[in-house]
């Protein structure tokens, strides 16, 4: 698909510089192997990966793709993990609270805030956070991953606060709604009434019986968001000048940097499969009915 995209960057060189001739373009294509048909290039790459364990090099940055991607994956992982954990830690308790106290004033306020969180565009929120916390108050840096020349964990965490907040707001909004509706559905089930009639205390009812059942759809949502831990968030990364995978993937696709794009997509495909596998395991942990084996028979 990438190979079929119009506007190859090598071809574009000739439209940018009158000193470049068609023979230069032909020579460059030969050097980069772009003179071969797409399927030949693909199988050559596949052979290179499988037989020589060489994942190719970036035409744009003139570096091995692994070298480019490893730093970006690390940055994205910490950013997205922070946002992921923050979303869970904030959204799950609030969602549970909202469900238990459904139709209360606080529940309405939480619902309104959740909808605002879901609706707010991340680029706008990012810029607003920068305007308030960096420009006006000067508390937090406007972008980047660390103060240049300062190797301090506290400093790095400081750089993560705004992008994580920007990313989390949307996730918190949707997660609160999922947890609330899932929990609400479960606490109205007959078996919980039976549990109460048996005289079980409220904590056991809510956290042992209700929450575990309510978590199944939430786990699906969380597992599906796991690939995002490495795929990154293009808009947030661009606004906060965060060198992550989202920007790299987009740039590599736009500049037809095939090997970088292919490796990034391959990595994402593997992670998507892995996260589905993790979700299956988690289902079994929270719901004994799903477990396979002797007990389930």
């Amino acid at each position: 698909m990438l190979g079929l995209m119009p506007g190859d960057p090598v071809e574009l060189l000739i439209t940018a510089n009158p000193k470049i001739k068609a023979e230069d373009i032909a020579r460059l294509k030969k050097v980069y192997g772009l003179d071969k048909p797409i399927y030949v290039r693909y199988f050559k790459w596949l052979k290179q990966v499988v037989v020589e364990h060489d994942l190719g090099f970036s035409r744009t940055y003139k570096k091995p793709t692994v070298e480019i991607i490893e730093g970006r994956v690390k940055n994205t992982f910490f950013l997205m993990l922070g946002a992921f954990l923050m979303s869970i830690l904030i959204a799950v308790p609030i969602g549970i609270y909202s469900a238990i106290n459904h139709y209360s004033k606080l529940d309405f306020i939480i619902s309104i805030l959740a909808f605002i969180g879901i609706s707010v565009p991340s680029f706008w929120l990012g810029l607003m956070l920068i305007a308030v916390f960096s420009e006006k108050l000067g508390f937090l840096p406007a972008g980047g991953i660390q103060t240049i020349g300062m190797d301090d964990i506290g400093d790095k965490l400081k750089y993560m606060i705004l992008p994580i907040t920007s990313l989390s707001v949307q996730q918190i909004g949707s997660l609160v709604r999922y947890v609330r509706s899932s929990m609400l559905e479960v606490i109205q089930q007959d078996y919980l009434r039976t549990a109460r009639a048996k005289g079980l205390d409220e904590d056991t009812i809510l956290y042992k019986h209700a929450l575990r059942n309510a978590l199944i759809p939430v786990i699906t949502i969380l597992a599906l968001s796991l690939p995002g831990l490495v795929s990154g968030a293009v808009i947030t990364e661009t606004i906060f000048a965060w060198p992550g995978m989202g920007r790299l993937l987009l740039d590599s696709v736009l500049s037809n940097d095939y090997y970088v794009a292919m490796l990034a997509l391959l990595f994402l495909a593997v992670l998507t499969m892995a996260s589905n596998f993790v979700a299956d395991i988690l289902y079994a942990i929270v719901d004994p009915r799903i477990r396979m084996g002797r007990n389930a028979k």
Partner: protein
Amino acid sequence: MAKKQRAGLNHSQWLGAIVIGILIVVLIVTFTSKKASKKDTKQIVIGITQEPDTLDPLFQEMAASTELYALYFEDMVERNENWDLMPRLVTMIPSIENGLIKKLPQNKMQVTWHLKEGLKWADGTPITPQDFIFTHEMIMDDRLPIISRDLDRRIEKMQAPNDHTLIVTWKEPYAYANLGHGALPKHIVEPEYKKNPEKYKESFFNSKPLGNGPYQLEEWVSGSHLVFKRNENWGGDKPNFEKVIYKIIPNTNALESNLLSGTIDAISPLGLPLDQALDFERRHGTKFAFHYRPSMTWEHIDCNLEDPILKDKRVRQALLYSANRQQIVDVLFQGKQQVADTWLPPKHYGYNPKVAHYNYDPDKAKKLLEEAGWVLSPSGVRVNKRGDKLHLTLMSTAGNKTREQVEQVLQSDWSKIGIELEIINQPPKVFFGETMRHRKYKQMALYAWVVGPVSDGEGLWTKENIPSEKNNWNGQNYPGWVNEQANKIDHTVPVTLEESIRKDLLQQQQVLWADEVPALPMFFRTDVSVTHKDLANWKMTGTTTPITWNSEQWRFSLLK
């Protein structure tokens, strides 16, 4: 029920504690982490939207790479902000007058370069003519992805009679042979290159170059920043800043915020578009210094001369007379850009101020259209004898706000004289990679060329450079303009050594060009950058010479 309420209360306390706990952690990190030191006057941090592709000068494609190049490399000859040539690595710029350029038999040419004494690479190794000869050999190696070999393919041989002299023999006279040659440190690059020439394109030199400029790369964190430290082996004046840091900030709004929060000291010319800079100046004009410099980027509309409507010169002239370009410049760019009359900018040595001017004159435009057989119909659109409408299409790059605004103004201007304009925009990759490259645009195309201080019209206006399948889509004469007299001039200019003769030839060419207007000149863009008010010696050039050309002179004038 009472039990449930108690349990609910306990839960809310527990749940609230988690949320409050997170907020407390965030606040602690915000206020207790080590504060970055106050304004550090020993370094400058510059924001730029683009990350360089590579730091190996042989393979650079991006403008950001060119901007950084002048920090860590110094050339034989460089231009200052007035576009004067300055000898940097050499004692004197070769010319016919000083005898360093000689015409040889068989229409060949010889140029002699004398390197200054004591020149060193950043590791202290002396710079010799062998570095230049080796680099020329690399450029001519087909196994390396060298982008343009326009200069080197004209060279017959390079010789080094001693450690300070380089003699270059050219296959034919070449007007720009006095602009010098690039060099890489042979002692560092050669072993890597010889090991495997095909793999050299992936070498360490892309990310860890060793140069001879005022600064040397200290750190490059991909996607984040590049740090350059002072080169202690540089032969020039000691640079004022110990470090020059480039921070990559792709979003231009975030770039503004970084400047406002003091994270960066300057926004590179590769930062804000002009309209955003003007708006930023309106809001924060007193806080920063705004630098504007007319550039050589020529915004224009190519006319496809194979089109039956546009092949008539009178129609093209009418289009120019009826486009209120001065108003476009005044309203959209607050008068900061220059209306263009020809394809060369006023700063170019060959510019001709006496070419035909097409000041806004709709009446003249109407008259020309009527002469060409286009009369106004009751519908308000002009028609010819056959009843065909005067309907034109204009293509450009989608998503470019400025161009889209210009298109709308033109649509309005041309509708006033009875021309119907259809706008068809495409993503830049499609527009440049397919539509322009293969001359698929139907009638008109709005885009820009970057003209250099020594640009001539050979690639742009000669008939041999009209891209077609027959010539393997070679050349950039996209309008398909053919004028035998201009064609001869365009081929003569690059092989004419005397600048005064070249100037005369270029001026003649522009007279012919401005009469026929194969492309409609719109305006020359203005480069803009924004800096801390106390930053001194930040001198934009308005040409391909990057802002970093005098980085060793940058300093904060008042801050201590």
